[in-house]
């Protein structure tokens, strides 16, 4: 692992939603190419962190800074963050009626390409591009002509998020409980795909409640978030420890400290 400047650096981040403080001072640094897992009990603020990093307007930042690739991420609009390479795989992907997945993905990709000064892809060029990406991850194109997430099963929606990740090739991919609601086969498929997408210029922040996803994706660092703070960080073995002991021992530790 290269030790360089952090791609993402979160310092003292405090965040409220609807008047309730959820994040109470989060510090986190992720370097290019690293895979970090963020674990923690329900309600600890994992998804809040994911949403805040992506710029969801419902959250209010009370204090702290987030720097991404040298820029002040919190000052950037959600679309500018996306164009700068921040991708969030949603826990609850929304449906967009009447718009095919293929059209949606092409629009998104072109928004990113435009930002990078690359020519936009027409539908034919996009199909070729897509074919390559699908081949690389070993998926077929059966989802492409269906309306975005409409009538998708829970598992299909999650897979669709990963497909978007593969096409949009972000520099920082945040997976918000992508494993929840997946059966074991789907979980494996998603994990294998994420592993294929690991690259020196692509970092991951994998938010998960359970350790089982980490049986297939080995993270570089595991963090435990409890009551709005990161209470422990460690190597992959920390995930196993949590699986065995649960979260309570850490929560108690957090209260004491």
């Amino acid at each position, binding site marked *: 692992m290269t030790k360089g400047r952090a791609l993402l650096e979160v310092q003292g981040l405090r965040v409220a939603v609807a008047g309730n403080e959820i994040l109470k001072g989060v510090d986190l640094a992720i370097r290019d190419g690293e895979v970090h897992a963020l674990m923690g009990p329900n309600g600890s603020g994992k998804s809040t962190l994911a949403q805040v990093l992506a710029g969801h307007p*419902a959250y209010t930042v009370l204090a702290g800074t987030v720097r991404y690739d040298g820029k002040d991420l919190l000052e950037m609009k959600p679309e500018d963050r996306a164009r700068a390479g921040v991708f969030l795989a949603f826990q609850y992907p929304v449906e967009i009626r009447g718009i095919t997945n293929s059209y*949606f993905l092409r629009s998104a990709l072109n928004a990113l390409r435009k930002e990078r000064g690359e020519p936009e892809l027409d539908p034919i060029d996009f199909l070729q591009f897509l074919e390559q990406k699908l081949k690389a991850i070993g998926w077929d194109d059966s989802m492409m002509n269906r309306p975005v997430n409409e009538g998708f099963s829970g598992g299909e929606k999650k897979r669709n998020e990963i497909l978007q990740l593969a096409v949009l090739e972000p520099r920082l991919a945040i997976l918000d409980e992508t494993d929840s609601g997946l059966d074991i086969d789907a979980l494996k498929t998603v994990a294998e795909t994420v592993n294929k997408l690991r690259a020196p210029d692509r970092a991951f922040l994998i938010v998960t409640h359970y350790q089982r996803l980490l049986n297939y994706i080995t993270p570089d660092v595991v963090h435990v978030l409890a009551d709005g703070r990161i209470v422990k960080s460690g190597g992959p073995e920390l995930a196993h420890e949590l699986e065995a002991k649960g979260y309570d021992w850490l929560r108690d530790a957090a209260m004491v400290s």
Partner: protein
Amino acid sequence: MTSIEAHVQQPYKYGFVTDIESEVVPAGLNEDVIRLISGKKGEPAWMLEWRLKAYRNWLKMSEPHWPNVKYGPIDYQAISYYAAPKQRPKLDSLEQVDPKLVQTFEKLGIPIEEQKRLTGVAVDAVFDSVSVATTFQAELAKYGVIFCPISQAIREHADLVQRYVGTVVPHNDNFFAALNSAVFTDGSFVYVPKGVRCPLELSTYFRINASSTGQFERTLIIADEGSYVSYLEGCSAPMRDENQLHAAVVELIALDNAQIKYSTIQNWYPGDEEGRGGIYNFVTKRGKCAGRNSKISWTQVETGSAITWKYPGCILQGDNSIGEFYSVAVTSHRQQADTGTKMIHLGKNTRSTIVSKGISAGRGQNTYRGLVKIMKGAEGARNYSQCDSMLIGDKCGAHTFPYIDVRNSTAIMEHEASTSKIGEDQIFYLRQRGLSSEDAVSMIVNGFCKEVFKELPMEFAVEATRLLGISLEGSVG
């Protein structure tokens, strides 16, 4: 106002006034005014008689108040029923059109000059009460297609007009149709002869310019056996504090194996944010599938008018005939729309399809009202109806009133309805993928309207999507 609402509630872009000398008859309605209008148009006696009959009926009728809209009383004596730009009444060539009128239409995106014309589209440009130019008439004549202002048709094709006018919408059909029949000025006339596929899209652009006037156009389209025609109307008006009345009548007749595709992009001035001013769009549109295997399709994109009251319908008389209605109606600010369709099944194996999309924003009120009537003789009739409503914000309303009257037990009816709310979560999802919030709203609204937009002729789908602040791309994904 949320970011979503801001995108939907765009300022009206066609609110300018053309400074042109007009001849406006004094306000008020009586038999003399009707004689005057008829005289100005050089009409034969039978037409005047028909108008007077309509007027006398109208006097006995009262304004309908069953629609789900609210407005103050209309003073029919305060309206001027004829306004025309001063120019030579008979035009031999488009070069003689007043440059101010040419500029006006050009500003509206309707070039009528020879060299700038839209390819593949013939245009009849109507300014207040008169048609000022009709393009491609000579080219169409080569195919035997008649496309001209209805005033001209009354003079030059009296037999056709007399045979068909009022056969689909009788002069006493309803209050506004009766008023129109008495005072109608211009509008378009189309006749497509047997077996001819009209080589161009035909279109009429209606512009209201003069103040304190109403526009009462009448359109009559006849598709003879085995013919096909696609027709589109567009419209706009200046921004004024007063309400102006637009009471049109459109009649379509499709004979055996004929097809008429009628599209509307309605963008009358909707009034301001507080609901001041705007057009009252009280319109009667009806098509008759008179012949076997005939087909009439109505597609409408309604974004304008303070109040819309219209139910483009089909009388499915010929066996195996088909009626279709595809509609997008948008109400924002304080606009009110009560719109839908009537499908009357008379013939055997007649089929109708209704797809209605209502979008409400601001304090807009959007009502779908539709009637499907299956008469006794309509063996094997089928109807499919789908009514979807989308709400943007929490001060608007959507209402659905489907009426079904089935008198033949072999009929098959399907009805689907949905209401959805465009949410910040949807917008955020798309922005997270790199789309601007404008593009995100566009994509969502566009996806919602897709089934209707795909029915529009390509040239006008662009106009429709632009009107909704939408890029076309989304509808053709």
